[in-house]
């Protein structure tokens, strides 16, 4: 049988999302792929927030509210990131983040 579903299960799901996001950021050469990675990371964190809200009555409200805030912030982040990507594209004629190496040592 399946193991019991508890807080840890959700945390592990969040961790999986988080790690996927981090790896996505690290691996995608496309700037928009990096942006997707960021969204994944935020979702992973949000899953944790909501899970805590569910499993710890102290955080019943706060967990959800923080998740909401994170979502709104993610929207802001996505908008600004997209603007940056467009500018980046204007300057480099590509969205390959590996071309943004002007500041390398």
């Amino acid at each position, binding site marked *: 049988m399946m193991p019991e579903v508890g807080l840890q299960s959700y945390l592990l799901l969040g961790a999986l999302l988080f790690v996927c996001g*981090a790896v996505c*950021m*690290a*691996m*995608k*050469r496309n700037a928009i792929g*990096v942006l997707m990675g960021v969204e994944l990371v935020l979702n992973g964190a949000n899953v944790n927030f909501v899970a805590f809200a569910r499993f710890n009555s102290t955080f019943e409200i706060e967990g959800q509210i923080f998740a909401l805030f994170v979502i709104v912030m993610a929207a802001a982040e996505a908008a600004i990131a997209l603007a940056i990507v467009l500018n980046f594209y204007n300057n480099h004629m590509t969205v390959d*983040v*590996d071309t*943004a*190496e*002007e*500041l*390398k*040592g």
Partner: protein
Amino acid sequence: MESPGLLYVAATFLPLASFLLLLLGGGLRAAAKPVRDTPLGGSIFRGLGGDAPIKTGAYIATGAIGLAFVLSLIGFILFKQDHPHEAVEHTAPHQEAVEHAAGADVVQDWRLSPLSLADPSRWSVSVDWASLNMGSRPATTLSLGYHIDSLTTVMFLMVSFIATLIHVFSIGYMGDELQPTVEDHQVHTVDGHLRRRGRFGRFFLFLSLFCFSMLNLILADNLFQVFLSWELVGICSYLLVGFYYERRSASNAAIKAFVTNRVGDAGFIIGLLILWTYVGTLNFEDLFRKIRLPENDIANVATASSLRHRIVRAAVVPGEAPSRDGQKLQISAGGDQVVLFPEYSRHSEEVRKALDTGIVDAKFAPRTGQLGSMPYWVLVVAGLGIFLGCVGKSAQFPLHVWLPDAMEGPTPVSALIHAATMVAAGVYLVGRCFPLFTPEARLVIAYTGGITLFMAATIAIVQTDIKKVLAYSTVSQLGYMMLALGVGGWIAGLFHLITHAFFKALLFLGSGSVIYGCHHEQDMTKMGGLYPKMKVTAITMLVGMLTIAGIPLFSGWYSKDAILAQALGFVQEYPKHILLFLLPLLTAGITAFYMFRLWLLTFAGKPRDEHVYEHAHESPRTMTVPLIILAVFSVAVAWGWPLYDAEASVLNSTIEQSEPLSAKIEFATVHAFAHGSHALAGNLALGLVLVALIFASLIYHSRVLDPEEAKQQFPGIHRFLWNKWYVDELYSAIIVRPALTVAHWCRKFDTRVIDGTVDATARGVVQLSRWDGRFDLGIIDGLVNLTARVVFAVGGRLRTVQTGYLRSYILFLVLAAIGIFAVLSYFVAFVRAG
């Protein structure tokens, strides 16, 4: 007009503005010359004359000085309105003095000193230029200011007027300098005669600077400003004497003039410093108020003392040892101290107390209202020092040697600077500082003047260079003025200064016209018979000659008679100084002789040099018109009504307005004698002059007496005079040669010992630094470079970490997070366990 004195300031600064304008123009032209191929540079360069000099600068300078003349004329009229002349009753001298002393309780303020004015704020302003402080108390202040009195106005008129005329004259005379290339026949180079660019503009540049300096000198209300201008006119003289600096004689003359003046200026500085140290001020009015007992006290009541306007001498009270801050003095005629009165003496009760008791409480550092003292001999030295400066500037014996040499400069310069104005500055300063001079100093002045006038006149007899004759004549006339001042003839001396300026300018310009007409031939022996060729010049020269000779109704007659009368009066008072009358009297005759000789040699008789004669021509209008104007003024400048009365003229009375009361009081009896014996002195001189004129015409016109015969008859005297009394040789022997010898030895010492030491030190240091350099390069730089190389290498390795790839940074971020987790968990476990 609120402060008409500003007119004079404006008149002073006009030539300065002209100078700056010309300087700017010349500088711009010089700056534009390298870039004259560019449009802008080319337009500037060509606009400023291009390769040839242009006349614009001359017009600017002439306009400036002309405007200055107009301004000073307006100022003069305003001044006369402010200070109407009061008729002076010529009564018995003693009576007048006594009346003056006792009668007039309330005296007009402006008679307090030569510089006192009816309305000071209208005519004088002074601003602090620099201030020296000793602790909290202002020690002394250098100020710049103007102070207009009647002497200033007259001097201003004279200087600006003559300068204007000479500017106009120069436009014609310096015409040669307008050419792009001037060939100087007197300078020989390997390529023949020197060829250079014309310096028309530069000439007027210097003239403008000179005019500014001279006017500023007259304008000044303090000795410091006078000194500044003094040096400025000195440098202008230097520049203009050396105008043809390629000529060796010209540059030598310039240097000689400059160095000789340095001797005089050394004395001037000594005088200045003494006054600064002891009196603490250089302002004329303050100086006189401190040295002489003032006329009025605080309530404007005349001081009831016979010591008014006199130098009050005092002796240390016996038994009273000087305290820390002062000493007790007893007023006595032969005392070795001079009492210094408070600057604002009218506010002082101390003065009245001192005069009442005869005991002066003199402080070493007097504060406001307190009295001070200085040693009498120091005051004598100060006066002599200032006089030495005047000796240098006015070419008095023994510093007269530079003036004849200075004739190397262009003739207008000689006329303006070395005859009419600058050399008169010495006389002017003696007159200005008259209250500073003690009787001993005045006697030195008188004798200096006496010796100078006689010596110069005798030398002038044998000179053949037309300008040299005039130069010695100038020295002689300056001697007259000095003598007049020395014997108390303040008015006579300055009166002669003014008249002399006109006729000497006339004579110099006339000689300039002759030289110009004869193509720069200055030797009189090559002239002769020029009268038909240049009538205007000849007639105006004749007028000038008659004026200087002292023919009645010519202006020179009035002033020379006044001097002779003053000298006679002085001799009547002090019979042992009879020489002070005999020398000028005799010289009056000599003057007439050599001047007539000059005129006759030049214009009368037959031409002695056909070449010169044939090419001789009358000068252009720009030169003759000033001559005519100057001739008119030479005749008429001293006229008054009645015509025979010298003291009736406006000029005389204007000068008289600023005569220091000290001169009037101290020489009251002399004046009285002089007034009485005026006719006697004048007649004696006139007789001598007539004899001299006849003598001269016999020799040089009728050829009754041959000058060559006379020369052979008195070879010793002729050689003595020809060599100018051997003064130059004397200087050469006692000053120049020893100085050269000493300099030679000094040079040897310098090159051998000092340079050797320095060289050895240098060599040692070089050696040392070579070792130091090796150490530096090898060890210190090596260490630094090693550090840098190590850092560079490490950095080179480390820079690869900064890949610039966003993604690798994220990887590092994640790795760092993992590391932090690991470390944190370790510590948390540790804490839990502990």
